[in-house]
């Protein structure tokens, strides 16, 4: 499902995000999918998700130029499709498997 720029998102608690020099690795312990986030700005957006009210707000907070947003939305759609990021419920999170 394509991401909703105005919804609040979170990194799935079953995902381990591991910084690398080129960006980050993200591994989902539940579905065993492995994704490469190939730019530090994308990593910054993902890391900022819990602290902002929407994807749009995260993109702005990280300072991503709006002309790059289509590329970022494509990336976020991919992460959503592999269940790495999901819409955040506003109830308190139960502690998951995330390191």
């Amino acid at each position: 499902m394509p991401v909703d720029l105005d919804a609040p998102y979170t990194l799935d608690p079953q995902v381990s995000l591991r910084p690398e020099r080129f960006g980050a690795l993200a591994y989902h312990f539940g579905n065993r999918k492995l994704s490469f986030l190939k730019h530090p700005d994308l990593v910054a957006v993902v890391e900022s998700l819990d602290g902002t009210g929407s994807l749009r707000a995260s993109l702005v907070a990280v300072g991503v130029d709006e002309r790059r947003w289509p590329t970022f939305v494509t990336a976020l759609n991919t992460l959503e499709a592999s269940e790495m990021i999901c819409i955040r419920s506003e109830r308190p999170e139960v502690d998951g498997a995330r390191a």
Partner: protein
Amino acid sequence: MDTAIENPPTDAAATDLLEPAEAAVTTDDLVVEELLVEEVSIDGMCGVY
């Protein structure tokens, strides 16, 4: 997106004297990025049985 960015990056001003293709590359660099997420199978790495 509600507002378009009207002014090109300052670099572009200096590229007015360059070939149009070079100026286009400078602006396009900002916008046209490759795929930022690449998926790979964790079962697809040689050296683990």
